[in-house]
């Protein structure tokens, strides 16, 4: 809020209204009416606080991790498998035993801002406090007010199953010394209020960096880089939001970026895999102003260099590859062309283009392979309530055939990407989602 409105004008109004109310109350019924008005005032602000909190909870997508598949919202129990073991997300409903019903605002702030539990135990960074630390106290309080207003669910979740030596919690203090920088977001005064709002959401509540960077061997994300990385625990690659070789939005218009984030689909791309889930659970519910602010920020940090180096690499094409390319084309014509078009042009807003689509060409073929293997429907959103689906081709094609067709797509119509093998296709199958 603080970056968008002229707060002084608002508070002047508020003072005027309050003063008028006070004067009237004093004249009409000296004590009781004045108390009533004050009570109503605080009751309304409590409900407004919860409403703001509900919105911010969406922006942080707390529900995404704190809800098991098909489970009670916010009751936890979702298993996150990582290279350190399995984390079971906690219940954050206000149940006194199973949830955070006995927490105070201060306890919640300590968890979100400092990464410490109520009893002082250090939290594992599977909970993205490394990003949430940038959230303001005001916003944290609103989120807490909302969570406390939820129905209490008495679901007690099993403990996490973390491997040695990571299960030795004191080691986290070393980790924190190395990788955790505590502190709320500081606006960049040289940038617009909109840009700062976007940066605040992307870096803080949105915790985009939790997926869109590489994590090192100790599970630490590179700081605010958004340079892309393999998502821990799910077999998907979260592409770089900076590099023009991946999904940088530098050459997109703000409207195009906004459309993709708010609806899950634009004429240039469709969000799939974990990003489709983020859009369904979180982004589609945010105000268009906030989405736009995120788009403004994301565009500003993206590379937009017109020097195209992709044409300069001339791959060596063997006779064997030419033959495989022809086989790939044949498969494409049979299974893909009907929707994605003769030249991979797609259909705007329905079937994404494949020609020039950087998530198809980028160095990691993982997402493209997974999309062909598993298919999927784009997220159903208010703006796209009845999306057109992509079939799961592993049900009807063999690994070798999928390798051929993906290799073809990555190298047809001016695209240029590495060749894909049947072994890579097989390896791409693991991972829950």
């Amino acid at each position, binding site marked *: 809020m603080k970056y968008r409105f002229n707060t002084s004008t608002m508070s002047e109004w508020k003072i005027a209204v309050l003063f008028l109310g006070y004067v009237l109350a004093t004249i009409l019924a000296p004590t009781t009416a004045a108390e009533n008005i004050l009570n109503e005032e605080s009751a309304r602000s409590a409900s407004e606080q919860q409403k703001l909190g509900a919105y911010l909870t969406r922006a942080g997508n707390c529900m995404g991790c704190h809800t098991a598949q*098909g489970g009670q919202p916010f009751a936890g129990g979702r298993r996150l498998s990582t290279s350190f073991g399995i984390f079971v997300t906690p219940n954050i409903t206000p149940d006194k035993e199973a949830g955070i019903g006995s927490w105070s605002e201060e306890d919640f702030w300590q968890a979100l801002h400092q990464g410490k539990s109520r009893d002082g135990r250090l939290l594992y960074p599977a909970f993205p406090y490394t990003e949430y630390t940038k959230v303001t106290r005001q916003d944290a309080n609103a989120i807490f007010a909302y969570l406390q207003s939820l129905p209490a669910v008495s679901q007690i979740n099993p403990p996490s199953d973390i491997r040695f030596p990571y299960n030795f919690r004191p080691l986290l203090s070393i980790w924190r010394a190395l990788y955790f920088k505590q502190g709320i977001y500081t606006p960049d005064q040289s940038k617009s209020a909109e840009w700062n709002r976007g940066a605040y959401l992307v870096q803080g509540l949105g915790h985009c960096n939790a997926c869109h960077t590489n994590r090192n061997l100790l599970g630490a994300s590179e700081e605010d880089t958004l340079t892309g990385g393999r998502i821990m625990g799910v077999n998907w690659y979260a592409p770089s939001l900076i590099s023009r070789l991946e999904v940088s939005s530098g050459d997109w218009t703000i409207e195009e970026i906004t459309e993709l984030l708010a609806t899950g689909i634009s004429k240039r791309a469709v969000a799939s895999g974990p990003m489709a889930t983020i859009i369904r659970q979180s982004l589609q519910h945010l105000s268009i102003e906030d989405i736009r602010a995120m788009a403004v920020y994301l565009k500003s940090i993206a590379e937009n260099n017109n020097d195209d180096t992709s044409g300069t690499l001339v791959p060596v094409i063997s006779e064997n590859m030419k033959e495989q390319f022809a086989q790939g084309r044949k498969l494409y014509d049979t299974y893909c062309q009907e929707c994605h078009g003769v030249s991979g042009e797609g259909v705007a807003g329905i079937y994404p283009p494949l020609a020039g689509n950087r998530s198809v060409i980028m160095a990691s073929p993982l997402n493209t392979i997974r999309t062909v293997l598993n*298919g999927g429907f784009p997220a159903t959103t208010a703006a796209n309530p009845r999306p057109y689906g992509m079939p799961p081709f592993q049900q009807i094609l063999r690994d070798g055939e999928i390798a051929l067709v993906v290799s073809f797509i990555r190298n047809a119509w001016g695209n240029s990407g590495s060749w894909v093998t049947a072994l890579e296709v097989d390896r791409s199958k693991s991972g829950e989602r």
Partner: protein
Amino acid sequence: MMHFILLITFLLITPVANAAKSVPDTIAERVKACTICHDNEDKIERHAYYPRIAGKPQDYLFNQLRHFRDGRRHYQPMAILLENMSDKYMLEIAGYFSTLPLSFPPPEQVSIQPDEIKLAKQLIHSGYPARDIPACSACHGDTLMGIAPSIPGLLGLSRAYITAQFGSWRNGGSMRGQVSTCMSEIAKKLTDDEVNAVTKWLAAQPVSTQPGSISVLSPALTNRCSNIVLGEHTK
């Protein structure tokens, strides 16, 4: 200036016009992801497993879609496909398939012994009341083609598919946890021979197109399978 405006208008309209021209705005087009497996032909090899969904009751299909998405019926390919789909859209898709005309593969060639036929018919028409096993026909109708809106038909399905479902019901509540009071409980009471006989027999039957005389579940069975039959609609 006029040219400029025309050009801009053209640029703005073209993609939309193209979309309208080449992609039918129909539910059939939207669910091509489903029909690549659940089509009405080519029920051979790998395709033999995928069950028909055309003509199954809407609520049955809707329940199954939700169970796949929410992890109550375990089948990873369906779970991934449906992960980000709303209830409302699922209901529409279920409705679409429920209205499609029935089109079935011919009955499977199965070698079945006379005593297996006898056993299967006992289960289909009478069950074993003493063991608390109802007749299949009591829920699935006397033509075994299901009872709207929630009970599926049993004919026109491959033996591989029916066998797999029995395996899921018998080997753990986790696979079909939502029906612990219903099919999983019944399936666990059956012997291996009984399961074998009934799956063979069902896969070998031609599909009946005659309307059945049982069109409503008895109160006892409605109660027994309440979590299927009385599933709430949209959230």
